[in-house]
């Protein structure tokens, strides 16, 4: 998930989509003969969807009807029309209100509004058979025409709406629009070839297959909105990329979806969005009648609010708070691991273009200490640029153990005993993959100093952090990624598809390999490509993968929580106040 103009990093939680449940991992780790250590690490790795240990509890009807459930969020949503959003705070809310064609159970792709779906061999024609008897909150029924109306609407966006500023994900999946506006800087032709509706069937065609499909159909941004409610919109389309979002995206009384909850109110100054249960929901009706998402941006304040009983749950729990909360009787389910934290060696800065130097620095860093003391329990040291739960993760990559003596030796060999390096880190943010950037920086910096490197600390605010690191100004910097997709392309393709200033390396074998893999419609063939590419990348060593770690979510003792999702796509209709 990217950080949009409307998204503060600390609010963004990765949302993801994907199709493949990975089994490769257990075999990978167990193949060495299953010593105790191996078994333990295998357990760490199979963290995608741990079994729930708590018993099911009976709902407290009285409380569910009369007590609003208040959930503390790190940030405000940006838009109630999900197509204009790209941040987790918006998606958390819109996912309760609008349904997508496809959905996830854990990381597995399952039916959503589409009961079943099929694709042609080239992966260019996707046919969705919709559920019967689904109604929108405004009372109109769902049919194929409603689905096509949404896709056609997006494709026909004009003016400012074409700016990635508004429709980041749509332009990422479909490249362009029916008529590209030259002002918006989009050059690629649209990959959307049309949509045909026939009763409860909708067929969506694209020109060329990319590994973004079918994941794109499960993204919160491609949720289906009632065409009738879309007609209620009276706002003009925005003209420039600078205009604020239209008024209708900021009020709760325009749009209607098919989800278990409907929009009731958005109190901007009170920083709260209220949802009401939709009683004609096609699936199982929610227990809790009123659901309120209240922004409390400070993580310690969210914990205090939960402990004081002011809220009933919150997200982005600081790792240090997990244990005290659990001891206090609160429930702190941990999500599966679906992210990566890394440190980049920007090769535009000598001597980071020297492979020996990169290798030496990699040996200098004690990643295990970061995992043990800063990251939430359940995290693991990363060996490559994607989490082990993904198809295409390789056990054969080169690894770089913590060995300060070796590091010092290698630096000496390379003629860089007294190296000085600038090291950037973000200041005003926590991310699901990076709970305390400054502390992680501190630990790495002291490790580097221990092998004789002089570290120049360069703290940068999050807003300026991304542009600065992207422009290649930081020789060393910390960054990470939470998957949008259960698909390796969503990780590797984000960074290594072409030569960039933020990495500063030119390795044609990697670039070509990625392009070839992304166009391959067969997932198992693709996975082989990814594995080979991971090995190639770790040989190149463009940066040091640090960790994969599981973010937590917290609930009051009297709540029966929903199943947590490694893709952070929790379904709030599953959760309720439980009777004792």
């Amino acid at each position, binding site marked *: 998930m990217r950080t949009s103009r409307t998204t503060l990093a600390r609010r963004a939680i990765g949302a993801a989509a994907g199709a493949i449940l990975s089994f490769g991992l257990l075999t990978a780790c167990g193949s060495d003969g299953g010593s105790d250590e191996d078994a333990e690490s295998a357990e760490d790795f199979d963290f995608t969807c741990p079994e729930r240990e708590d018993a099911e509890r009976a709902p407290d009807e009285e409380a569910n009807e009369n007590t609003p459930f208040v959930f503390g969020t790190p940030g405000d949503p940006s838009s109630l029309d999900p197509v204009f959003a790209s941040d987790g705070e918006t998606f958390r809310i819109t996912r309760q209100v609008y349904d997508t064609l496809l959905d996830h159970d854990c990381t597995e792709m399952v039916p959503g509004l589409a009961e079943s779906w099929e694709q042609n061999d080239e992966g260019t024609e996707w046919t969705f058979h919709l559920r019967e008897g689904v109604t929108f909150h405004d009372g109109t029924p769902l049919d194929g025409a409603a689905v096509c109306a949404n896709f056609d609407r997006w494709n026909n966006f004009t003016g400012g709406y074409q700016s990635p500023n508004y429709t980041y994900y749509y332009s990422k999946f479909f490249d362009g629009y029916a008529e590209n506006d030259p002002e918006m800087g989009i050059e690629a032709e649209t990959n959307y070839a049309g949509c045909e509706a026939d009763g409860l069937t909708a067929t969506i065609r694209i020109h060329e297959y990319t590994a973004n499909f079918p994941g794109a159909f499960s993204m919160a941004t491609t949720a289906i909105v009632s065409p009738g409610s879309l007609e209620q919109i009276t706002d003009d389309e925005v003209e420039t990329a600078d205009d604020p979002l239209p008024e209708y995206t900021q009020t709760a009384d325009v749009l209607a979806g098919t989800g278990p909850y409907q929009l009731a109110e958005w109190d901007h100054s009170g920083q709260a969005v209220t949802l009401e249960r939709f009683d004609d929901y096609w699936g199982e009706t929610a227990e809790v009648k009123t659901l309120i998402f209240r922004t409390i941006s400070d993580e310690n304040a969210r914990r205090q609010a939960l402990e004081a009983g002011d809220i009933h749950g919150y997200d982005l729990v600081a790792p*240090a708070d997990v244990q005290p909360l659990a001891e206090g009787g609160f429930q702190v389910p941990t999500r599966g691991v679906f992210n990566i934290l890394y440190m980049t060696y920007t090769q535009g800065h000598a001597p980071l273009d020297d492979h020996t130097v990169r290798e030496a620095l990699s040996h200098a860093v004690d990643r295990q*200490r970061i995992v043990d003391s800063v990251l*939430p329990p359940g995290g693991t040291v990363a060996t490559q640029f994607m989490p082990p739960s993904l198809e295409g993760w390789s056990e054969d990559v080169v690894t770089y153990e913590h060995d300060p003596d070796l590091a010092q030796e290698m630096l000496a060999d390379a003629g860089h005993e007294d190296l000085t390096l600038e090291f950037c880190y973000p*200041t005003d943010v926590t991310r699901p993959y990076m709970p305390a950037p*400054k502390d992680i920086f501190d630990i790495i910096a002291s490790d580097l100093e221990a092998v004789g490197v002089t570290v120049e600390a360069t703290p940068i605010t999050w807003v300026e952090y991304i542009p600065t690191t992207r422009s290649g100004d930081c020789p060393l910097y910390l960054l990470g990624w939470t998957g949008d997709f259960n698909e390796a392309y969503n990780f590797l393709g984000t960074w290594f598809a072409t030569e960039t200033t933020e990495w500063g390396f030119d390795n044609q074998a990697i670039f070509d390999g990625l392009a070839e893999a992304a166009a391959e419609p067969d997932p198992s063939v693709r996975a082989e490509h990814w594995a080979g590419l991971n090995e190639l990348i770790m040989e190149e060593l463009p940066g040091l993968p640090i960790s994969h770690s599981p973010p937590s979510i917290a609930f009051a003792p009297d709540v029966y929580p929903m199943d947590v999702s490694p893709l952070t796509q929790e379904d709030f209709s599953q959760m309720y106040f439980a009777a004792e």
Partner: protein
Amino acid sequence: MTPAKIEKLERLVEAGAQARTAESGSLWRQSFRRLRRSPMAIAGGAIVGVFVLVAVLGPWIAPYDPTAQRWGDEVFLNRNVFPGPRAENWFGLDHLGRDMFSRMIVGARQTLLVGVVATLIGFAAGAAVGGTAAAAGTFGGRWGQRIEAVIMRAVDVALSIPMLLLALSVAALLGPSLTTVMIAVGVAQIPIFARLLRGSMLAQAHSDYVLAAISLGVPKGRIVISHIFPNSLGPVIVQATLVLATAIIEAAALSYLGLGNPDPGNPEWGTMLADAQRFLSGAPQLAIYPAVGIIVTALGFTLLGEAMRESLDPRLRRQG
């Protein structure tokens, strides 16, 4: 300009002028004698003395390197494990396994530095502005008086804007760093010093010795620089002491707003306090040490400054 602020400043000016113009500076001596008897001054002086001593000697008396993560493997901030006070670490460890006692000791120096530099910035720029205004108004003729009026009006406008807002604007411009905090807090003090110094200099300008110097034909520039200016400094020093306390507190507030020194290498109390807010539930001691440090130090400077002002102020003196 807030009348209350103005009145306070003007009283200080008046007091300073009286002290200076009285015969052979005996009022100054009297003031100092009163100061030595005042319990406020003694308490304030003691605190400031200890603080300055620690700040100056910090690196030599700190038992360990305050930046070394020497006990890094004993702290688990993801599990709230922070070893508390013990024989080798009197104040326990911070969240990265650094000796808290050493950090507090060495942090005193940074904290003092922030206060002093911010005050100096405010003073220097304020002196330039206020001094120019006073000099122009006194010796610049009709145009000079107009210049003075414009400058002082601008100062009044600046004085009326909340200090934090001024600091915030400066900090937004410069990005977060310790230098930013110093400049931001310093800039916010400029109008105070400008007003004070102008008043003080005007009072001097009308004194007998300046009139005498003028009649003797001493160049005006020289009168301003070598007589009026140095003789106007008394009240400014008192104000500077008070501003130091404010600067230390404001610096902490700016750190809390994320505009302070984000570099964890050098310990500074304001940064430490702001950063420790996130451990308030699990490890409140990390916040309480720097908080107590800041409160006590600010108290010391305030006590000393107030005592100095009282001993200078003829009206307060009258109450005995």
